[in-house]
């Protein structure tokens, strides 16, 4: 028996339906998991939506969680566009966070410059962390999937070493970095909430990436490199340089996600600074079907799942961890849906040998 993929005529409608189908499929699984725990899925969904979007605190909390997801989603998106499989968003986020925490605690920097310095420093740190695997790829042909993944752990362990060493609180012994200065704390838009500057950075980045991809020569060059690097060389482009620049951009945005967590939420670095935002960014980018503006609703969806499911789990007594499972399942669902939107599956029941 063989499964054959027959291309379908392209359809804008099916393309749009893909993400919707994936969301519905993952919510159905969510309902099933809630039912398995002996709770009522409808109550679960109601509580999830209620605690994710209804009310000032719920909505702002979801938006605050969506900000890093937009940025890590964009980071994955630009890299995946040129088939540079950067799965190092988590590590790039962490170096961004460390840079922001270091800069935000410097008293030598004039106060008005603190926040801009944190933003710049985090972007540079993230960009450099992504530049290394990009350099290893173009110079040594080292596979970026493995190298970016390795760097995630190298960075996470070095951060842990830093937190339990030089950054450890000498009095309490806590493994948190020193607090950033009050002037380095990012402004919030709504008193009493955690909706901070990061959301603006996220939205501006999404608009910027959208402009870059649609309206600039570089965006077109990225499309050509992503489609066919050999054709790109014939067209007079330099694919290696495009890979390096795209990696810098990708890492910078992941680094900014880390800066937001430090400047707007935690005001310091600790081991749990990111609940896997870097990896979730991959799911965001895929759910957005690699379209930059679609990253905004996709990130909002995952953020709503994260905020909503933790409160819902508490109230109806099902285990947390639902959010983790749903992120992965939504990612797998959108991948399968994307194949189904582009191809018709045909089963060849006759064994059709392998040779021509």
């Amino acid at each position: 028996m063989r499964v054959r993929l027959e291309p379908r005529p392209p359809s804008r409608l099916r393309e749009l339906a893909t993400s919707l189908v994936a969301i519905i499929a993952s919510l159905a699984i969510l309902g099933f998991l809630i039912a398995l725990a002996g709770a009522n899925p409808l109550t679960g969904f109601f509580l999830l939506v209620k605690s994710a979007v209804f009310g000032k605190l719920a909505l702002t909390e979801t938006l605050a969680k969506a900000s890093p997801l937009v940025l890590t989603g964009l980071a994955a998106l630009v890299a995946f566009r040129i088939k540079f499989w950067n799965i190092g968003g988590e590590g790039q986020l962490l170096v961004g966070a460390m840079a922001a925490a270091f800069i935000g605690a410097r008293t030598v920097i004039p106060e008005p410059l603190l926040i801009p310095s944190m933003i710049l420093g985090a972007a540079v740190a993230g960009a450099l962390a992504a530049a290394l695997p990009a350099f290893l790829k173009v110079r040594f042909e080292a596979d970026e999937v493995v190298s970016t993944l390795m760097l995630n752990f190298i960075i996470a362990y070095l951060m842990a070493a830093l937190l339990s060493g030089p950054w450890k609180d000498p009095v309490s012994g806590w493994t948190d970095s020193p607090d950033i200065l009050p002037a380095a704390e990012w402004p919030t838009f709504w008193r009493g909430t955690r909706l901070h500057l990061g959301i603006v950075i996220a939205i501006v980045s999404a608009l910027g990436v959208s402009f870059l991809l649609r309206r600039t020569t570089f965006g077109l060059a990225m499309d050509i490199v992503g489609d066919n690097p050999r054709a790109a060389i014939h067209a007079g482009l330099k694919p290696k340089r495009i890979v390096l620049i795209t990696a810098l951009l990708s890492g910078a945005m992941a680094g900014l996600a880390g800066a937001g967590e430090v400047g707007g939420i935690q005001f310091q670095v600790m081991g749990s600074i990111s609940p896997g935002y870097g990896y979730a960014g991959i799911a965001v980018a895929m759910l957005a079907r690699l379209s930059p503006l679609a990253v905004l609703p996709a990130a909002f969806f995952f953020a709503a799942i994260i905020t909503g499911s933790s409160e819902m789990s508490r109230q109806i007594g099902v285990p947390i961890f639902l959010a983790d499972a749903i992120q992965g399942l939504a990612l797998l669902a959108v991948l399968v849906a994307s194949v189904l939107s582009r191809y018709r599956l045909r089963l060849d029941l006759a064994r059709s040998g392998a040779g021509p």
Partner: protein
Amino acid sequence: MNLLDLILDIGFFAAAVRLAVPLLLGTLGELIAERSGSLNLGIEGMMLAGAFAGFATAAGTGSLWLGVVAAIAIGGVLGFSLAMLTVVLRLDQTVAGIGMTMSVTGLAFYFYRLGFGESAVPPSIQPFRTVPIPILSEIPAIGPIFFNQYALTYIAYLLVPALAFFLMKTPAGLSLRTVGENPLAAASVGIDVIQMRIVALIAAGSLAGLGGAYLDLAAFGSFGYGIISGRGWICLALVVLGRWQPIPCALAAFLFGAVDAFQLRLQTSGAWAIPYQVFLALPYLATLVAMVLSARQAVAPAALGKAYDPEIR
């Protein structure tokens, strides 16, 4: 206490072997998958699923060996599922693998909490006992280190030469390597590329599941949220370090089993100024260096990570 005191005893080396076995099993599985052309990024999730299924089955039935069977089975099912996504539907291996690890991690923890509840003391089982091998276990130093281990450990030892023989000396092994190097050439001599890759991922999943279950059924006797904590990713690194060859991969697994044992001692003794996390980062650092050193030597299977479309010739 100085550095030498920290490692120069039989107990240290026996612990190194104990911690190397899950890495060894996962690495051999990853090696099979990669030799067939599949980068298995689901491995971290597969190890965790194996650890959970093994523990839950053993706790429920009282049989450790049924736990082993369950772990192998769940790993195989996950390997098959990943093959459906990446080999049959030809989805990108990186993204599908990450998706599998993310979902399986969430699901395993969800079901663990559902089945075992929330308690201050993690539930535990009576793990496998060590089985000293007559005569061999009496060899000075070598005996207590290598031959006073669990039955699963001996199985893992035997898998190394068996896999090396299979890959290098049998027709099926040659087919598998050809599928990973040049699927078109493989198909032209009548090898079923798709089927080969599916079987390879099932084998990879089963071995990863077994490696995960070894941790709770033999080494620790309990399941915790941090039980795998990156061991699957280390296996991915060890395949690169071992240059896609079974024996060097196995040696790399033992080396980093020793590094793991060393950092555990460092954590408990606090004897040294270097933070233990540096040693945790070591396998990943070594892999980056190895990737640079082996640049352009084409040691990786040529078709690794690339989907095979039977209709393109």
